């Protein structure tokens, strides 16, 4: 990877002889559009974001909505119309409780303004049928080897529908520090060597692709049971000074197509940790959205999980 970036280094050396200046191009005036976000979990309150888009030349990232309303239906049952608070980024609505399989429809509008609407659903939970671990040593790019916890997770993909998944692993630690409870939280970066993550055989290549953060589809396993293998670096199993207990939890998320597409296009548009974001020598990537008449993403997401617990 280090060498690969060399070619970009050459490019940027050339750029070093260059100069930049402000220019003025009259951008087409685009009306501000309503923006809506919600990530809906089963048995959780609804968190909603509403705002408006604004000129690319503006400094703030978004514009608040004044005098907004929204109407929500769950499984075609109207739940009522509510006033949108204008002073928060996210508003929490404990009135609504969701379960897997629910269909959600939200319409939002400004007084004398636009109306946007979105429909989504909460996918069914895909059960983690089993999870086994083995300690292994694996060669790594820099030579030598590194110890991993080889983990096998089994699940069954529902047939007759396209399914979108994400494997998400979290490390939590508990202990006592100075008489107070001590808690740590980290997302585990695991080795994504399983073919399910790679439709193209590019794993381990010096020309590395983007890390899609554990997203995958059922393209290779449609309707079948599958044992997904992934390697967790053993470093995550080491206790820090205050920790007495560690819990490594693997979440098998079941996503909607909209969430999956939004997530992927966000990663693509940013490139290598934002490396080519905004650099116009790369084709622009259009970020997916599912809000009709506006922008943003509303989607349900469900998960099942299994854990490993270690005590000092």
């Amino acid at each position: 990877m280090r060498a690969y970036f060399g070619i970009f280094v050459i490019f940027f050396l050339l750029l070093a002889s260059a100069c930049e200046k402000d220019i003025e191009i009259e951008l087409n005036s685009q009306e501000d559009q309503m923006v809506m976000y919600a990530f809906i979990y089963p048995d959780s309150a609804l968190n909603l974001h509403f705002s408006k888009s604004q000129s690319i030349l503006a400094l703030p990232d978004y514009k608040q909505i004044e005098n907004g309303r929204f109407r929500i239906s769950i499984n075609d049952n109207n739940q009522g119309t509510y006033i949108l608070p204008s002073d928060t980024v996210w508003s929490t609505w404990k009135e609504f409780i969701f379960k897997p399989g629910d269909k959600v429809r939200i319409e939002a509008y400004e007084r004398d303004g636009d109306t946007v609407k979105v429909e989504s659903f909460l996918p069914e939970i895909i059960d983690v049928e089993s999870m086994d671990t083995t300690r292994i040593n694996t060669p790594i790019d820099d030579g030598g080897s590194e110890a991993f916890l080889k983990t096998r997770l089994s699940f069954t993909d529902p047939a007759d529908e396209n399914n979108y998944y994400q494997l998400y692993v979290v490390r939590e630690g508990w202990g006592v520090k100075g008489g107070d409870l001590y808690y740590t939280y980290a997302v585990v970066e695991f080795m994504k060597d399983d073919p399910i993550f790679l439709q193209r055989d590019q794993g381990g290549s010096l020309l590395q692709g983007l890390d899609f953060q554990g997203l995958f589809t059922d393209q290779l396993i449609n309707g079948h049971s599958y044992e997904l293998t992934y390697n967790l670096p053993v470093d995550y199993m080491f206790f820090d000074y205050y920790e007495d207990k560690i819990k490594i939890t693997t979440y098998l998320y079941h996503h909607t197509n909209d969430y999956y597409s939004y997530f992927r296009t966000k990663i693509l548009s940013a490139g290598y940790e934002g490396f080519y974001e905004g650099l116009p020598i790369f084709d622009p990537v259009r970020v997916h959205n599912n809000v009709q008449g506006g922008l943003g993403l509303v989607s349900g997401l469900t998960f099942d999980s299994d854990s490993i617990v270690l005590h000092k």
Partner: protein
Amino acid sequence: MFRSSKTTFKNIFFLLLIFLIPSQISGQSVLYKTVSFKQKTASTAYFLSQIEKQGEVVFSYSNKLCFSESITLSKNSGSIREILNELFISCPSNFIVKGPKIIIEPYSAEAGKFIIRGFIRDSESKESLIQANIYEPDQLLGTVSNNFGFYSLTLPAGLIRLQCSYVGFKDEHLLLNLRGDTTINFYLKTESELGQIDVVGSRVPGRLQSTRTGTIDVPIEQIKNVPVFLGEVDIVKSIQLLPGIQSGGEGLSEMYVRGGGPDQNLVLMDDVPVYNVGHLLGFFSIFNADAINHVSVIKGGFPARYGGRLSSVVDIRLNDGNMTEHKGVASVGLLSSRLSVEGPLVKDKSSYSVSFRRTYFDLFTGLLQYSAVEKSRYYFYDFNAKFNYKLSKRDRLFFSAYAGKDQYGLQYNEQKVSVTPPDESSETQFVTTHDNSDVGWKNYVASTRWNHIYGDRMFSNLTLTYSDYRFFIQQRLNYQTDGNWSIGTQNYYSGIRDFSVKADFDYFPSPKHYLRFGANLTMHTFYPGVDLLVQEISGGTPIDTAFGGKDVFRPELRTYIEDDFKLSDKLKLNIGAHFSLFRTENQYYWSAEPRLSGLYLINDNFSIKAAYSHMTQYMHLLRTASVAMPTDLWLPVSDNIKPMRASQGALGLEYEFNRGFSLAIEGYYKRFHDILAYKEAAGYFDFASDWEDKLTSGEGLSRGVEILLHKKTGKLSGWIGYTYSKTTNQFEGLNGGREFAADFDRTHDLSIFGNYKFSKKVDMGLTWTFGTGSPITLPETKYYAPDLPTGQAPVNSGFNQFISERNGYRMPNFHRLDVGFNFNKVKSYGSRTWSLGVMNLYGRQNPFFLYFADSENEQTGELQRSLKQFSLFPFPIPYLRLTVRF
């Protein structure tokens, strides 16, 4: 007795030459005098007497001539030649002009025709002159030499005059009494051999000229005089100055021809396709001008012999090598040096031409980093070699090869490794090791060709070619495992390799026909990305592992036939057909492509040209970015990805003021089908998706008018090229299905190139280019983007950009002036030239790309967001180069 008759013949011949040539040069105009008649119907004798009166000529003819008591002409007036052709339509005749006399000599029969064949070459170097004209000026029968300088011409027996002509060279005239098949080789003299005399010469009659539309032959000497970046003579950058051809960005060596992408150009180096023509991310092209004999650029009206790309053919022919003496050119510049040598291996039988160019960035950086632990280096080189051997008068072998490479390397991670001698008697020693990473790309091209002349009318060329383009990353690491030092190497490569066998035939059945046919079988192997891992533990056996993309093998077959023929004195046609077949994993794609181009002479200087061609392309370049990157992947069509196709019609007018000075106006209309682009939600670095899934296909349309005023010879030479064009694309999956401006669509494009020779010692080159700004996609609004609940890490800033229109804006207009001077001096060893000049003389800040960024207002201190322009070469950049010819 014998000696006496021979001397007499010589004297007569000499006298004929003195007296006849001037009259014959002007004789052409006698036949083009216009005469008119009061009546269309009369006897042959009446018409001849009228012509004698009006044209002030005298006819001389034999009693074999067919006279008629009553003959009806199609019109009342016309040139003498046109009237004579009509009068003797039933007994075709030669009209030989001798002063005021016109000899009418009926063709006896086919048996009375003989073949003249041979080669046309440079008198000094014996290099082939490609596309040189050879013709009989009175009968207006002629042909052109092929890519090896060969010609074959069938002419009626008797007294004939042959004229051989090539731009930049003095015409050769030859008078001979043709009594049988004969071989005549022409050796033309260049301007320099004639002591800087302005070689203009007589122009080639219009009816003998090419039917080709959209074709430009650029004299290599003109290309060498174009002032360029850092003094690196660059063929591709010179070609970019021609109308209808644009660069991808300032300083880049990509070509966008009539709305087509950079992968739609077939670049041939001695008949071998070259897949990557750029060094240093496309800022320099791989062609060393010192090694090149001829460059031809075809943008439309593609002859049937070419196929496989939609938009252009750049046919580059390398020097064969001087057959008589050893010559060389050495050149030292700011960026690179080059050396070319050529000469005979066996005089007049075999020769060689070898050239080499290399940059020295790495030498400078090596000095600067002498004591540094981490070191980096970059270089590129080009190596060309060509050998040829005349096996017999009818057979000749050629071997040509090219090797070029770019490499960027890093040396890092210095470690001291302890080495214990085997006998353990002496002290432990320490060795310093480094890890190394290299990235680069390389081209290897080779061809072997066998020319054979069958009889007198058929020329064949059998070619075996090899072309290999690779992008590579190499990593070499030293590490310790269980106390043992080991070396691990990992290589990644991608690319394409072709093996090809090709047979081409040129058949000259009569002066009215030039038939070409042939076939080509290519075995493509695409390497979509392969990794090789080797681990070597000290004292152990290396362990090899290969993983990654599978090689994709694809065969491709092409056949063609074309005829360049003269339908009448005014109408010439080139009709051909090209057939291709390409195999994918589970199916065959094929294409039968008609090719048609025609030329109609309004008068001898002024012609109308028209052409239609259909092209198919079975491979495409999966691009990393909008500038050339070595990671760009050549990939074939597949069961799901259809071949790209284009059909193009063109109509043009050409007026030739005099030899080598012409004005051409051409309009074209070109439709693209199944062209490819990335989906809006995909990108090159998405290796988790199959490449087929990342692409979407659509349609394109390009139309435009091109004007070229081209002066190839004289003290002042150069061209003015202007293009007005519009290119749009439409994809169902892009831009909401709406039509949008194609990348690098440029409405106005103007290029002026001039070269002026002040004296034998000093000349000046100047280019000025202007272009409408390239289309660019800019977001107009932005909106909130939260961190995702399942994100491992934030993937970007807190907002998303909203793009309403793809390529909806244009960058500021582009213009630039480059000026260069050459100071030549004759030396005892040959000559030397100092070249110096300035690129971007008036420091225009041209846009390379635009982007949005936050910055602090210098006056108010407030943060503001603005659109910024990035310019690569915003100030005048001088260059200096010394060239020595020996």
